[in-house]
């Protein structure tokens, strides 16, 4: 059904922390970020589709190894940015999904951008079942990454916190930050956890947790090991995952006085700033569109009491 289980290396190789990859949209000058890829619609193919857990899969877009990837795919920016995806045309000429679905870029491989996706409904189940070579329509890149939200992010050491499918944007950040990143990965239950073998292949020295204690890592929410780490050594946090987790981390970050950038998510229709579906409450009553003002956003700007 799906492609072989394999790990595709980053297009630029693993960049050392001192030489961040330009392919991730980061300018080595360290002053500003460069988006070499304009937002566009790219009709592409599934290069690889690998199962990572009972409901999580890793979709790599691009082309067969002997073909050139469509323009814009190899220098696709990541670091928390996202793209709209859909199986197009849908297998069998169906119309299961009306809207594209937004997914953050996991990392950019030698084939093209890769997306870590959790199947939670018909549209994501459809993507999960796509065999290699299936046509996919991508609209992107979209939104702001950590490099845009925090221009000197490369100078800092980070705690990267992933809740469930919040693992989505993490690989490019781990690639870029190298030893300056420590990943925390929490799941509800064993069945949701991605293969530890796969996680070991890229995540470095990570801490895992499983809410019900059925899987690998510590039992309980990921905020417990995070709080311990903050106690030992306060660091800025980037987190992506369910809103209640982000809210809990916002509280932790505040109490430890550290910066907190969230890869926040909401239901989203256009991803381009027109529909206001993803508008969330900021402090002082302002509204923020997560598609344009985020998804990576200074979490202290959000009104978590209203949001969750």
């Amino acid at each position: 059904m799906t492609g072989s289980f394999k790990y595709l290396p980053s297009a630029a190789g693993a960049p050392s922390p001192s030489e961040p990859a330009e392919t991730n949209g980061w300018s080595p000058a360290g002053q500003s970020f460069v988006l070499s890829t304009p937002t566009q619609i790219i009709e592409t193919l599934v290069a690889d589709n690998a199962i990572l857990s009972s409901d999580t899969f890793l979709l790599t877009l691009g082309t067969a190894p002997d073909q050139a990837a469509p323009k814009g795919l190899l220098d696709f920016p990541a670091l928390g940015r996202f793209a709209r995806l859909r199986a197009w045309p849908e297998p069998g000429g169906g119309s299961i999904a009306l809207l594209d679905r937004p997914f953050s870029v996991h990392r950019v491989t030698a084939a093209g951008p890769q997306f870590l996706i959790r199947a939670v409904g018909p549209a994501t189940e459809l993507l999960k079942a796509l065999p290699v070579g299936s046509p996919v329509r991508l609209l992107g890149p979209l939104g702001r990454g950590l490099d845009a939200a925090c221009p000197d992010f490369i100078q800092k050491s980070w705690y990267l916190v992933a809740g469930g499918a919040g693992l989505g944007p993490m690989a490019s950040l781990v690639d870029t930050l190298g030893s300056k990143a420590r990943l925390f990965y929490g799941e509800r239950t064993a069945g949701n956890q991605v293969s530890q073998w796969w996680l070991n292949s890229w995540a470095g020295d990570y801490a895992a947790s499983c809410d019900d204690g059925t899987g690998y890592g510590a039992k309980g929410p990921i905020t417990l090991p995070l709080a311990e780490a903050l106690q030992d050594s306060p660091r800025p946090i980037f987190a992506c995952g369910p809103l209640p987790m982000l809210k809990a981390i916002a509280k932790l970050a505040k109490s430890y006085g550290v910066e907190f950038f969230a890869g926040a998510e909401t239901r989203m229709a256009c991803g381009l700033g027109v529909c206001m579906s993803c508008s969330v409450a900021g402090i002082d009553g302002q509204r923020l569109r997560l598609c344009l003002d985020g998804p990576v956003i200074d979490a202290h700007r959000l009104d978590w009491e209203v949001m969750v």
Partner: protein
Amino acid sequence: MTVSPQNEDQPDLQVRIGPLVLKNPVIAASGTFGYGLELKDFCPPDRLGAVIVKGLSRTPWPGNSGHRIVEAGGGLINSIGLENMGTEAFVRKALPKLKAAGATVGANIIGHSVEEYLKAAEYLAAADIDFLELNVSCPNLSSPGGLSFGSDPDLAARLTEQAVKYAGPVPVIVKLPPMVTDIALLAKRVEMAGAAGISLINTIPAMSVDLKTRRPILGHVTGGLSGPPIKPVALRLVMICARSVKIPVIGIGGIFTAQDALEFMLVGAAAVQMGTAVLTDPTSPLRVIKGLSAWLKAENMTSLGQLIGKLQTGPPPLAPKDNLG
């Protein structure tokens, strides 16, 4: 995205809405095209017949909280709640750029009271706006406004009459709701009140629930359904309105392809609006415009006027061999 300019031999897609001449009948529907320029790289606003910007109130509105969209029944239910920057910010920040880009601009206006509608109408009419669309059909307001005006023909007519006065020379079209007792009556009353045209349908009140959590999906509990499932409903209502009034009728509801647009014209729409399709694919209006030209050519027709309202509903003509005399 590059689009070749219209050739001399292209069929004429021009349509008239009251005093307005639109270069083609494809209009971006309010709420799905932002303030007009966000999608310019995919769909330049000057390529459309007109752009109707996000519903504007006199002061900024924050919209509804909680989830605002959900797909259901093959369509989209939204409960955005008319979040918008307000007329003043729009006129100051967005409108000059949109006009400079060459777009024909319609402003959808909304209010909680007659007074709020009229203030918005007056303010926008004084700006460089090509037309107003009076939104009396939004299902996403808890307090008075939107649908509560459109579902009462007396109220809708009074509001239209006033808005037309406040708008002065700027034409006012009225966007009607689908859920009314007598759509023909509503259309006629609005026409008599001085509307330059009517547009319909707005979204159909709807909801979606989560069986697991026993909760509604949308924060506002209910929302408005749009997209492919509402097209048959919209076609019928547009047909009834087109047969009831002399002012132009603009068809809205699940238009994704040129064929969809042509079907609306067949039942009497002088123009169409595309909304949900734009969210699905921001280039879709350009594809529809291209498709309209291609269809006219294939049918050896020179203008859309030859199709608009040409629906045959009488008994089909008897074929000669059946005519036994």
